[in-house]
């Protein structure tokens, strides 16, 4: 079979899975919907492997295949097909998305067991995977935007999955609104590109762009900035990041799948996919690099101070995506996408571990309440620690090779990029610190009562309360029931976490500089037209960068160990001395408050003004009231004539006819 035939299969399986689970939810008993959904994604992963194998059979210069199912729309000078583009980049994304999704589906089979909305969850989840695969396989901007919007909708559905929770629905709306800002940016960007090149499919646009636009032509810069708006909204970069921490209201597998491993990396994919355009618009690429750097530093500071376990990981996600955006913006495409893959492994793993811990805590997410789970949950402890080490960039774990490679590329670009690289290293230190902080606070220290109960084989059963507001939960329509699911007791959860832990350790093997380089060589056909081949660092420089990153990781982890376990006094001292800074970090740099004051309040005030003044006075009063008054006056006159007396009718008739006759006589004379 050809690679494109596999490509269509990749899309078909999750779609069929969605339909079967969504339409057959009543007929499917027990855990069957979960198994069906997982099987659909598993088959999709197998088809992705088929796509990989058959693509590798092609000669290297022919590894870009377009297949069109039918033509959406064809008018003069423009055509949009339902077409997919299979090249190394899309194959790589399909493998990551379907592979990680399969493991998370497996995990969810157990994690969601006692939820009333079991089938609904898997229907949404399969729909999400379908949308994401559509996004990465799309062969033109129209289909990309379709996938982009579908993914946003799926994210909304899953964040608001427990829809009786007011904080969850609010978070879903927030995510959706910010994502729509990105959608609008992407649409405008596609329009500007179409205006300049007259094409909508990737191949056509990228071929025509160098002729249509000079380097840094205002139109291509504007188009790229608009694409960046789309990428930033989806990938939670400054200042459109505020939805991602709130999105942690969704079930933990959703956080692992959508808000760590796949959807939020769509922006990185988009920038990598549009790299011929960004190389024509270096100004826009620099904006991407600067914002990526600002984001990675900002999010790392917040992650050091946040106390909600899932939100720490969420800010860590924002920070790591900042690294990826920086990477693909400085033309380190291979490194950026490599980090995308390793990040998908270890971040999904961290979320799964967090889900297991939260299960053991009976729904409590605060780090302040956790501690000493090392003995109670040895399996979770080991896998979570592996994920945290990979995140920290501990030498020879996967994150070590990918993150530090990005920074090595950035430093090698020279000039102002050195500053970005240095900031990246400082944030890498913080990354190691908060990764260590999570492990030490959750698994070390004196065991909390929940940990002791679990050691004796019991599970903590607290009242169901919203961890954000503390209000009691409505568990009627889908909410984890009294049973909690910890990885220690459920083999599907264990299997998924073990697989990811192995990948988080050995994932780096694909890209050891000078030794394997498999990853970069595989992606080479997509990026061979890049103008920045000569800025790539040599193997020596890369190893130097890796070594520096490894040192920073060790320092950060050691600092976390010292600060949290060895010398708790130090904690109080620093908190006293840097109280203001700590408050700033804990309050996430007041971004939510700034948005509240700058956007939400003015819009709400405008709405109130509209409701009270425009609507009630003008619309209701003048327009509606006036019309009603006019009609009422007219009808009351007509009613007063209808007396029912025959003779008055006759008299009116006579008067009317006489009047008409007189009028015509006068006119005629």
């Amino acid at each position, binding site marked *: 079979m050809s690679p494109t035939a596999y490509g269509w299969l990749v899309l078909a399986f999750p779609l069929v899975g969605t339909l079967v689970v969504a339409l057959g939810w009543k007929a499917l008993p027990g855990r069957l919907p979960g198994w069906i959904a997982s099987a659909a994604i598993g088959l999709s992963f197998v088809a992705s492997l088929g796509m990989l194998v058959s693509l590798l059979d092609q000669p290297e210069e022919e590894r870009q295949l377009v297949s069109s199912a039918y033509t959406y729309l064809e008018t003069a000078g423009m055509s949009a097909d339902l077409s997919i583009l299979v090249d190394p980049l899309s194959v790589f994304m399909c493998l990551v998305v379907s592979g990680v999704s399969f493991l998370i589906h497996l995990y969810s089979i157990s994690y969601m067991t006692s939820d009333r909305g079991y089938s609904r969850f898997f229907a949404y989840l399969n729909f999400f995977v379908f949308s994401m695969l559509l996004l990465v396989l799309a062969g033109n901007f129209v289909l990309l935007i379709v996938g982009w919007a579908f993914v946003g909708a799926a994210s909304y559905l899953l964040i608001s999955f427990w829809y009786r929770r007011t904080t969850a629905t609010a978070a879903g709306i927030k995510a959706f609104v910010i994502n729509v800002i990105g959608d609008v940016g992407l649409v405008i960007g596609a329009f500007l590109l179409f205006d300049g090149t007259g094409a909508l499919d990737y191949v056509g646009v990228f071929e025509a762009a160098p002729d249509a636009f000079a380097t840094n032509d205002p139109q291509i810069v504007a188009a790229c900035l608009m694409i960046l708006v789309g990428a930033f909204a989806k990938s939670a970069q400054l200042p459109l990041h505020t939805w991602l921490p709130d999105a942690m209201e969704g079930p933990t597998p959703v956080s692992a799948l959508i808000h760590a491993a796949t959807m939020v990396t769509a922006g990185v994919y988009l920038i990598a996919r549009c790299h011929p355009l960004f190389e024509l618009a270096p100004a826009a690429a620099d904006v991407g690099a600067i914002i990526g750097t600002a984001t990675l530093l900002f999010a790392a500071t917040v992650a050091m101070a946040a106390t909600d376990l899932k939100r720490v990981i969420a800010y860590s996600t924002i920070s790591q995506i900042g690294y990826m955006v920086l990477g693909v913006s400085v033309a380190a495409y291979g490194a950026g996408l490599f980090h995308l893959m390793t990040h998908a492994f270890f971040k999904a793993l961290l979320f799964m571990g967090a889900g297991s811990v939260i299960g053991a805590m009976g729904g409590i997410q605060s780090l302040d309440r956790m501690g000493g789970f090392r003995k109670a949950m040895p399996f979770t402890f080991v896998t979570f620690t592996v994920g945290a080490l990979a995140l920290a960039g501990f030498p020879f774990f996967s994150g070590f090779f990918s993150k530090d490679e990005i920074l090595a590329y950035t430093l090698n670009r020279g000039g102002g990029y050195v500053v970005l690289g240095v900031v990246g290293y400082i944030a890498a230190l913080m990354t190691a610190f908060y990764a260590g902080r999570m492990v030490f606070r959750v698994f070390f220290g004196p065991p909390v009562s929940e940990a002791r109960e679990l050691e004796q084989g019991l599970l903590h059963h607290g009242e169901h309360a919203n961890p954000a507001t503390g209000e009691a939960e409505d568990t009627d329509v889908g909410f984890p029931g009294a049973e909690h699911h910890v990885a220690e007791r459920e083999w599907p959860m264990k299997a998924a976490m073990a697989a990811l832990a192995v990948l988080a350790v050995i994932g780096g093997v694909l890209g050891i500089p000078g030794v394997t380089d498999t990853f970069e060589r595989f992606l080479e056909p997509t990026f061979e037209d890049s103008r920045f081949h000569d800025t790539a660092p040599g193997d020596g420089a890369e190893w130097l960068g890796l070594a520096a990153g490894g040192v920073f990781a060790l320092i950060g982890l050691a600092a976390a160990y010292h600060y949290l376990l060895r010398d708790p006094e130090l904690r109080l001292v620093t908190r006293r001395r840097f109280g203001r800074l700590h408050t700033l970090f804990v309050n996430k740099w007041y971004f939510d408050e700034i948005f509240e004051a700058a956007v939400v309040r003015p819009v709400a005030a405008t709405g109130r003004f509209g409701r009270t003044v425009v609507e009630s006075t003008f619309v209701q009063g003048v327009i509606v009231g006036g019309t009603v008054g006019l009609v009422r006056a007219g009808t009351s006159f007509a009613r007063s004539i209808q007396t*029912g*007396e*025959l*003779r008055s009718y006759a008299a009116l008739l006579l008067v009317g006819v006489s009047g008409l006759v007189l009028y015509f006589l006068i006119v005629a004379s």
Partner: protein
Amino acid sequence: MDTSWFVVLSAFIFCIGAAGVLTRRSPLVILLCLELMLNAGNLALIAFSRMAGNQDGQVFALIVMVVAACEVVIGLGIIVAMYRRRLPIDVDAMSELRG
């Protein structure tokens, strides 16, 4: 003979009929007065027909007679029905169709 005499006579009879329709309360008399009005119209039609020298007006007059006959049949039928139901024979008393 001058046509205007006929027209004046026709107008005169029409006014008598109209006055009767407007002032009388008995449906029977109102029907009679309606007949007067219709026949005043007929008179004018025939006079103009003579004046113009063709038969168009006479045809119209015949049609008006047919209509008048129909109207009388229905009107008298209604009056008989009212009488049978012992309703007051008074048009002012029958004002149920007021708005």
